[in-house]
């Protein structure tokens, strides 16, 4: 277990000093949040009484989280498969699940600043929430990140090296677009969005901060994505066991 912890700690250090990762998980979402927030000052999300700024707060916090968990894991794992790092780790006493477990733990820690920084910036843009709302919104996005981490692991292990980057990018952008990370979706876009984890992470967090009842249907969909991607990741991992 100490091995897994040591590896996890190194994973976190590597992610935190990677400028690209920090840009996409913190700086970029915060910039987009500030731009979007300033353009919707005083408006509410159409058809609701939710302030649009509040909506964007959780939307962009989750957007940063997707980058940190999906993109970072998919590309890292794919890269480390290619470099032979995973092989080298198999030549140690590290248990076979150690690498993946350390990735998951590191992801859970690396997404924290992505959420917290966006929330802090949100307070400067007039978002006013109760402590319990901040905490529950944080928890929803934080735990929701597991779906994207599992997806990232499945992609990183499962796809050929050269397909990983484009596929991840498409899922990241299209998933965020349909999930309502860039603007509140309606009509057909929303119908598609309601099948996606990007949509429900944001939607449940929005429900929490606007004191609306949590839709358990959404929780079920999100849970199904976490479990489904975790199974897929485990299958892909097994498939690559002798690489």
């Amino acid at each position, binding site marked *: 277990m*100490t091995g897994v912890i040591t*590896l996890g700690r190194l994973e976190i250090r590597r992610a935190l000093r990677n400028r690209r990762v920090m840009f996409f998980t913190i700086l970029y979402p915060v910039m987009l949040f500030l731009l979007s927030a300033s353009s919707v000052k005083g408006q509410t999300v159409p058809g609701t009484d939710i302030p649009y700024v509040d909506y964007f707060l959780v939307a962009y916090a989750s957007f940063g989280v997707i980058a940190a968990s999906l993109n970072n894991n998919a590309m890292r794992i794919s890269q480390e498969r290619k470099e032979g790092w995973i092989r080298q780790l198999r*030549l140690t*006493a590290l248990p076979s699940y150690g690498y993946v477990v350390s990735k998951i733990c590191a992801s859970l820690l690396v997404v924290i600043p992505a959420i917290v920084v966006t929330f802090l910036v949100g307070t400067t843009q007039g978002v006013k929430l109760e402590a319990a709302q901040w905490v529950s919104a944080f928890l929803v996005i934080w735990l929701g990140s597991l779906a994207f981490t599992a997806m990232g692991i499945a992609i990183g292990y499962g796809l050929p090296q050269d397909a990983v980057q484009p596929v991840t990018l498409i899922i990241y952008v299209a998933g965020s677009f349909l999930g309502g990370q860039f603007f509140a979706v309606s009509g057909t876009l929303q119908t598609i969005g309601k099948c996606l984890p990007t949509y429900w992470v944001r939607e449940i967090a929005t429900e929490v901060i606007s004191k609306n009842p949590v839709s358990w249907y959404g929780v079920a969909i999100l849970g199904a994505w976490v479990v489904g991607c975790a199974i897929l990741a485990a299958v892909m991992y097994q498939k690559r066991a002798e690489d």
Partner: protein
Amino acid sequence: MSDERLVGGPGVPAVSFEQVSKNYGSVQAVRELNLRLPQGRAIAFLGPNGAGKSTSMEILLGLKHASSGRVEVFGKTPRQAMTAGHVGAMLQSGGLPADVTVRELLTLMTKLHPKPLPVDEVLLRANIADLADRRAGKLSGGQTQRVRFAVAIAGDSDLIVLDEPTTGMDVENRQIFWNSMKAQAERGKTVLFATHYLEEADQIADQVVVINKGRLLANGSVADIKAMAGFQRIAFRLPGITREQLLDLPHVVSLDLVHDRVQIQTSDSDKTFYALLDQGLRPQEIEISALGLEQAFVAITERDNGDAVVASMETEDAR
């Protein structure tokens, strides 16, 4: 030895392969390999590219499973041996993450080992103290090899497996590397290394294992391998000599006759040469020389591939 109990006593082989085969679809990478490597030796693992060398190493390191047969490392399964900290390894295909410093890497590797060494000690033994703060991605090829070696010796392993460890090193570093390698062997460690530099095997190995086409071709001391190849060469000039006069000589492995120049490869140059004299022949310009391991290696693998037969037939035709 204090850790005899842990490694199963001196009688247990460091590595044992029993009827091990590995198939990739219809391709047989390893065929019914039987091999026992004793503890405490420096063992060179030789074989042409594609001979099954890497696959055998991957099997004994637990990276791949044998299709059939049994592999034991210190009496345990490869993975158990790895988990118990018996084995340290560097592979050509085992890469290092580019964004991590050498010290961070070795800190991790020592912590992952059940019998860790202090990081500074590892840096010293691998002669890379000057590289400690460099990122792995910024190292030259030779430096990377030294860091990989450090990874392999990050713990107090009983068996150290090295896949072409000196590739990309300059002569000086290769020398330093082999000295630290010898130091490992002197500490009672078993060192198994694959190499393309046969002179290294010649200088360092106590035992040489040759693999070709997935099978064990030879296993013995360097001298054994040379003898097996017919490692001595007798060359002389003798006007009027015919091939028939030489065919009955003992211990001859191959015979080459061009005009009045004769070249014989023999497994026992003394006996061959005495027999030659006993026939009443008096050759001139006699040279008797020992061939290096390299020629021995080429000779036995070529013979195994059937090339030697072709070569001798060509000589026959030329005559």
